[in-house]
């Protein structure tokens, strides 16, 4: 992955997280759970990347 893509990925993660945080406030029910997943996406993605690097991937 090149530098521009890395920066884009960081910004996309931030936008997704903000959308999830605000979405949880706006919606109820199943949409609410989906919004929580969006809000947690950067943390989940980070955990996945750390695990990938530790096990020698990428």
């Amino acid at each position: 992955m090149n530098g521009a893509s890395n920066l884009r990925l960081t910004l996309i993660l931030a936008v997704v997280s903000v959308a999830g945080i605000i979405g949880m406030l706006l919606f109820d029910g199943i949409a609410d759970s989906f919004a929580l997943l969006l809000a947690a996406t950067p943390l989940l993605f980070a955990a996945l990347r750390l695990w990938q690097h530790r096990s020698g991937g990428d």
Partner: protein
Amino acid sequence: MSNRRLFRINLWLHRWSSLVATPFFLLLCITGTVLIFHEEIDRALGYVPQASAHGSGLVRTPGDAVAAVQAANPNRRVILVSRDEDEHPGLLAVYVAPKNDTGFEHAKAVWVDATTAQLLESADPDKTPTGIFLELHAQWFMGPLGEVFGALIALLVLISLVSGVVIYAPYVRNIAFGVLRRGAGPRLLQLDLHNFFGAVVLGWLFVVTCTGFLLGFGTIAQGVWSNTELKALKSRLETPGELDREHPPIGFDQAFAAAVRAQPGWRPTQAVYPGTDLSTAQHYTVLLFGAKGIRERLFRIALVNARTGSVDDVRDLPAYLQAIQLAQPLHFGDYGGLALKILWVACSWLALFITGNGAWLWWNRRRRAESERVAAEPAT
């Protein structure tokens, strides 16, 4: 402006805005983590009053409950009644203030059982552990001035975030997202951790910082509303003749009922009594919340005539107050259950880490530069 110059300006902004904000922001992260769980902590420590078990006791009206509070506080008057059936079923929080006060600074909450009109023992919220943490977090023990100081800290953190993204751009040209250079010295590892965790919590930090900035102007915004919109309402709606502020002809429960009749489907939670900074001399200001979605968080107000019980005005708050209202849950993360609270704690701790390790990176760089300078000096 050349890219190099832009980078250097942002590096300077990131370094100094972060360093100035560091001690305060560390404290905010720690107190914020505790405040995320304030409901659970208060409950565990026994600070949340409980409705008494209703035996064969006489069932009383909500008006009787308020009268019982008034009788127990003869030197004060009731200025606000709050009812939250989700959090405190069967209870009323009745706020009493010195008789001549129109503001809420010296108000104290008295809990009362709405069914039996029995006054309940409860701790002063300002003296509970979470109350003290909240005062530190929101006001720095300085009252409304502390709120503005908090907004200033939020502004510094916001500058640090934006400048941080600008100086992060050249860094990620060379390092893949999530790579931690172990074995290349502590400085590079800490730099990678700083950038990686910073990228992870960027969105969350942006939300919490922007909302913190808005909340810093809460008291000021309330004052602006009181002196503009409410003032206009007062001149339009008030009629000649004094009203007995301590015993208005219409009780708060009747004001609630009138507001619901005017706005079916809305839930009244608070009634501000006539003659305060947030009501006219003759009207209750009743706060009405919607049933679901964003309306659960965004109340509108109904002005209920305390003489006649008529609803003389219903309106949404102006945009600046709505923004501050929405900023509260978005800042404290208490609107999505335990899962969201855990997410908030995780992000707070990561923010705590990058703040501390950012300061370490600055100190380490400074120390290295100093030792290099000493080594370069000719021996005397």
